[in-house]
């Protein structure tokens, strides 16, 4: 064995132990009727679990809710994060103080955020509902129409600072000369943003979207703490579905199959996003 291979070997072994083996074992589980309360009766079922999951209305609903959540939350976080980052970059005084304050929500554990908003938005006991009521606004935050949107807003509250952080770092690393050229050419602020800032920031935006989208696909804590997936199944997300199947009903085969189907969906979306970004960049370079 060559030296370079021997040097890589320890890392390969560690990765195999902590990643490859669990993934392979999960795949093996997904091909079996594997229930934690019936370990003496584990049976090979092939792709039956996948077929069951694919036709389960609960899974399809949870996948739909999750995709809606990811698109809604990441889009809002992108817009707000970019706007705040641009404002913060121009801020001269109190910049560090405001940056630290804005980042605070990120440091709260999501389950605590969920519990906090469960009571803040409570129709009878919540502060937010109370003050909205004072001005004649009544909102059923966790009713069937708004519940998923409310969960999105909570995620936006917590994770927009992450976007701000990413975009601020990106904006500060951009070269100054294109902006000076745009100013000399008399470009408006909007034109400068659209034709200079945004294209140069595109790689950062792509990375930020991918990181946030991957994280948003895992949404669980808010659902668990606030709605338990309800009313009905209006806020049931894919992670909550997998948690229920695996850790409450102990149907590990189905839970593993659902997890692999989620991985497939995420892979497709990430590849599509990266390809779209690359083709857009290539197109711009050709121009």
């Amino acid at each position, binding site marked *: 064995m060559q030296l370079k291979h021997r040097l890589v070997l320890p890392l390969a072994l560690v990765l195999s132990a902590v990643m490859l083996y669990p993934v392979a074992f999960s795949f093996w589980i997904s091909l079996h009727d594997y229930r934690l309360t019936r370990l003496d009766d584990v049976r090979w079922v092939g792709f039956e679990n996948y077929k069951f999951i694919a036709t389960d209305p609960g899974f399809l609903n949870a996948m739909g809710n999750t995709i809606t959540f990811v698109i809604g939350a990441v889009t809002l976080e992108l817009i707000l994060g970019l706007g705040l980052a641009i404002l913060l970059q121009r801020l001269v005084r109190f910049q560090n103080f405001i940056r630290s304050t804005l980042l605070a929500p990120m440091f709260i554990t999501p389950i605590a955020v969920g519990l906090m908003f469960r009571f803040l938005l409570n129709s009878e006991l919540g502060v937010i509902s109370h003050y909205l009521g004072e001005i004649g606004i009544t909102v059923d935050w966790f009713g069937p129409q708004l519940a998923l949107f409310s969960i999105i807003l909570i995620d936006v509250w917590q994770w927009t600072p992450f976007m701000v952080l990413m975009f601020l770092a990106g904006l500060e690393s951009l070269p100054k000369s294109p902006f000076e050229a745009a100013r000399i050419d008399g470009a408006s602020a909007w034109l400068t943003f659209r034709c200079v800032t945004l294209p140069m920031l595109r790689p950062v935006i792509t990375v930020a979207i991918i990181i946030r989208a991957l994280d948003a696909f895992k949404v669980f804590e808010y659902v668990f703490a606030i709605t338990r997936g309800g*009313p009905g199944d209006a806020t049931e997300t894919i992670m909550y579905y997998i948690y229920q199947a695996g850790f*409450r009903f102990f149907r590990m085969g189905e839970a593993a199959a659902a997890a692999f189907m989620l991985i497939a969906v995420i892979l497709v979306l990430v590849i599509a996003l990266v390809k779209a970004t690359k083709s857009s960049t290539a197109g711009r370079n050709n121009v």
Partner: protein
Amino acid sequence: MKTRNSLPAFAALLSATFLSTALVNAAELNIIIEEVPDYEIVKKLTDEYMAANPDVTVKFDAMPFDAMRDKILTSSLAPSATYDVIIIDNPWMEEFAKAGYLAPLDDYIAASDGYNFDDFVGAVSSIGVVDGKTYGVPYYNYALGLIVRQDIFDKEGLEIPTTIEAYMDTVKSLTTEDFFGAAMQPQKGYKIMEEWKNWLYANGGEVFDADGNIIINNEAAVKALNQYIETYNTAAPKNSLNWGFDEALRAMSSGTAATMLSYNWMLPALNAEGGMSGDLAGNFTLHEVPGGKAVLGTWSWGLPANAKDKEAAWDFVSWISSPEVAKRRAIMGGAPVRTSVLEDETVWAEGYGEAYYKALTGILDDAAPLTSGTNAEELIEIIGTELSAAVSNQKTPQEALDDAAAAVKRANR
């Protein structure tokens, strides 16, 4: 010099001998337990047990309900149990017993003089019996009762409702713009199932018939769901579709609701002076669920099949659930599970009064669990999801219950 050097060595050897003997005899019992008011009482009583048995150390791993099920599972799957004693919620009993996680207790019970297993309330103790073997002895009950603001009922000259229709009329009449007749818990899953099933019982319904056929979508069930939705729409706080136990309790303790269907042992907590209810303490009373038959919940003590020292574990379990200690636990505020305790005049006098224990006796006389079977937890979630969809107008009651029946069949495939 030689003698002086050998003395410390001899002392060390002697100490090691004593220490190893002590370690052999000492027992450490690890117990998983839910953080509820009864746990605090059990903890205090356990100090006495440890004082009387200095070679035994009892350690509690107290946690919220949501964390318990998977902890018990992982302990049961391990070659050697993490917990020597576990508590088991009634939907889990059959599942855990049939999975082989629990040790049968019949021989231990038979060998325990004065334990008097028959003294446990029948509806409660039968939950621990699976296929003729006893896997759990009752810890505390959480049967549902009707908790009311008696001062409001007295002021309005209202009778305590004994039928579900009378209850619906009463709570509707008490509801105003900022005060509500019923603090309900229509949160998806367990909570709504637990609450709605009292309506189902009142209409003579059940999840399965005597032959095991699903009857959750029959006429009685649809009527019960329509009544439940009407109660929510006419007497519960607006926009409370995600309310669970915490929110309903806060509504009662803060004086914005007149009644709630909840665990009987919440009454002492609501009436505690200086407690959550502030000036309202003392105004709450407990009654049987309208319609008579109540939803019964029970936590049982059990011994994991893979526990190392079952004798020591049973010694503690048989002590904490013995008639004598059960009586003292009830006086300290615990939820009784023994008939002798419920009928004990000392308990009435030193506990929460005759009315409370008589109401509780009435509740336990006609109470049944949410459902049974090896996947009871899953069935409760399935039905609770569909009930929530109906209450939030996403489905009609008949559609929701038909979907629930289909999903139960699918889960039982």
